[in-house]
């Protein structure tokens, strides 16, 4: 304890002095994700996303010992979008002005509207919709999670580098699947690949768990994929996990599966360990007894951004944080080999995309040779000249 106090006092000598220890409360607004997953390994834990924010707060508090700041997480888990306004009011009523949001796009937009007269800032850690970064972009929303276009471009660059340019697309029947398909069509055009045919897998409902389910699956998937034009990879477009996981090893032709199964693009995977990531994975597993998924990681990163901003600006005010993130010098380390920074025009975090097989990192995009006049990271997703975002 003595050591702690001594360290603290001296820390204040070295850093711009803060009047007194500042308590920063960060909200986590989240809704349970579907437990209907093809693999039981993917069923979300009760602390999904939240655990990332909690670990971020622990990391920030270690730094906070030296800077006189404490970080706390206020969790608001809601049953559905209808409960979001009341939860937001509870958060702002408790003095929370920085809120990590794990909600679908429409609920996120509603939350942004609900808070438009306050100074609060939202950090989107899951919704991948382009719309949120384009036509419907908002000044009070920062996107830590990558968009569908960034993910699709990350995978497409690797497939082109690998010289696997012919893709057979099998797409689900949900609206999100069409949005993801659009991102892949755009990526194919952008990087010179070809979607040789598109097929649809209709979601007819029904559960994912069944006894001896594989016996039917191994007959259905070959039929779904037979009589296809020549192709290199089978591209699964299945954001809700309805069928994608059934495709590997069951296709008519022996072809690798990519996209929503097989080799998939993501901002994070529990198997990622390069660039010191092992340390973060170890810390997470020690604390929460499970692997860190993409949403956990985005929530951790949102918390780290908040920590960096408050440490460097010596302020917890949302407008100071916004200015800091928009500053030319803003960058954040995230165990992905290069610094992450902000696309000021859409408030999207600029970041590499990991390509994982669920066991380890197979590659990381941008790939060598995909050039850009400013930063290769902007070869992923929509670039400034094509943006439709006008922040307000």
């Amino acid at each position: 304890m003595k050591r702690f106090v001594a360290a603290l006092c001296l820390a204040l000598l070295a850093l711009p002095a803060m009047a007194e220890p500042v308590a920063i409360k960060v909200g986590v607004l989240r809704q349970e994700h579907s437990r209907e997953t093809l693999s039981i390994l993917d069923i979300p834990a009760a602390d999904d996303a939240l655990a990332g924010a909690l670990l971020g707060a622990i990391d920030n508090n270690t730094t906070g010992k030296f800077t006189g700041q404490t970080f706390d997480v206020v969790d608001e888990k809601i049953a559905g979008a209808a409960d979001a306004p009341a939860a937001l009011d509870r958060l702002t009523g408790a003095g929370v002005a920085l809120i990590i949001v794990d909600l679908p796009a429409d609920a996120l937009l509603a939350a942004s509207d609900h808070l438009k007269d306050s100074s609060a800032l939202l950090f989107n850690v899951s919704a991948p919709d382009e719309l949120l970064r384009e036509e419907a972009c908002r000044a009070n929303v920062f996107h830590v999670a990558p968009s569908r276009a960034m993910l699709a471009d990350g995978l497409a660059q690797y497939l082109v580098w690998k010289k696997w340019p012919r893709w057979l697309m099998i797409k689900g029947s949900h609206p999100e699947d069409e949005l993801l398909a659009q991102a892949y069509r755009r990526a194919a055009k952008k990087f010179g690949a070809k979607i040789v045919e598109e097929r649809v897998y209709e979601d007819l409902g029904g559960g994912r768990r069944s006894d001896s389910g594989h016996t039917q699956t191994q007959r259905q998937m070959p039929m779904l994929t037979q009589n296809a034009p020549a192709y290199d990879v089978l591209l699964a477009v299945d954001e809700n996990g309805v069928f994608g996981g059934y495709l590997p090893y069951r296709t008519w032709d022996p072809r690798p599966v990519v996209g929503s199964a097989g080799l998939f693009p993501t901002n994070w995977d529990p198997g990622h360990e390069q660039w010191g990531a092992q340390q973060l994975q170890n810390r997470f597993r020690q604390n929460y007894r499970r692997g860190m998924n993409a949403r956990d990681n985005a929530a951790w990163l949102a918390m780290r951004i908040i920590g960096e901003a408050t440490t460097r600006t010596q302020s917890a005010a949302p407008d100071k944080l916004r200015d800091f993130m928009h500053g030319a010098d803003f960058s954040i380390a995230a165990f992905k080999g290069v610094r992450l920074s902000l696309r000021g025009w859409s408030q999207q975090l600029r970041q590499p995309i990991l390509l994982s097989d669920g066991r380890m990192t197979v590659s990381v995009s941008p790939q060598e040779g995909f050039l850009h006049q400013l930063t290769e990271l902007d070869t992923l997703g929509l670039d400034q000249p094509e943006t439709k975002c006008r922040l307000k």
Partner: protein
Amino acid sequence: MQVEMKKHIFMLALLSFGAASPAFAYRAYVSNEKGNSITVIDTDKLEAIETVKVGRRPRGVELTKDGAELFICAGDDDAIQVLDTKTLSITGKLPSGPDPELLTLSPGGETIYVSNENDNLVTLIDVKRREQIGDIPVGVEPEGMAISPDGGMLVNTSETTNMAHLIDTKTKEIVANILVDSRPRYAEFKKDGSELWVSSEVGGTISVIDPKKRELKQKISFEIPGMSKESIQPIGISLTKDGKRAFVALGPANRVAVIDAESKKIEKYLLVGQRVWHLAFTPDEKYLLTANGVSNDVSVIDVAALKVIKSIPVGAFPWGVVVAPQ
């Protein structure tokens, strides 16, 4: 004729150095992160002469002051191994705590300071007794370690807290915390103790700190035509004994920056192997060796000419490098 000439020069050389054996033959030790080995290089011949199998994932390496022993951070073995440099055999290990990466030795050589990343601690090890004698709580993911030439100040950098923690080695208390750019990885004092240089891998800068005033003095950033900002990732730093020049390894930019250490102006970028990690001078500062992770080689820089003169193949993923008299 040519032979005659060579002989002539050789004679001259002998004359100018006196009759003693050539003083310029040193041995360099290179840790191979994936090879689980140490490559020994003869810096006179500029070639690898020996490969020694060591523990798993060897990275940080440090020599005792007399050069008799090499300490090796074997991360995946959770230990610091001790290599006898005469027999080239492992003679024991020091209790480092989990996953050691970098260490530094007190000027007298009696204490090792090692960063213990999992517990946010700097761990102190008594070299003779080969046991832990204390620890100091620091920021998240402690990494870079350096000690002032007078031994009074220890510096630790924490990668996620983004600070250089200045520690009084007598009281073992932190006396100042200085914010630097993202992911500070390595620290090095000028030999006269007047400046402390800290590299920020992700931030892409060098922070020059005044250790007496305990404040940031200046930041150095890098620009290489045709390379993106993200690819310039400073890691290893070597400062000449006279404090006039610095060499900084720039990681995936595959270059070593040559800096005028007085004006802090960048003089030159030297193209070396791929993903250059750490650097070491020969004691006479004639050569600077660079460990190049991805290209599995060591580049040799002629320090006077500021030219890369050779690439020496070593083991898989070379990471750390130190040089000692033979």
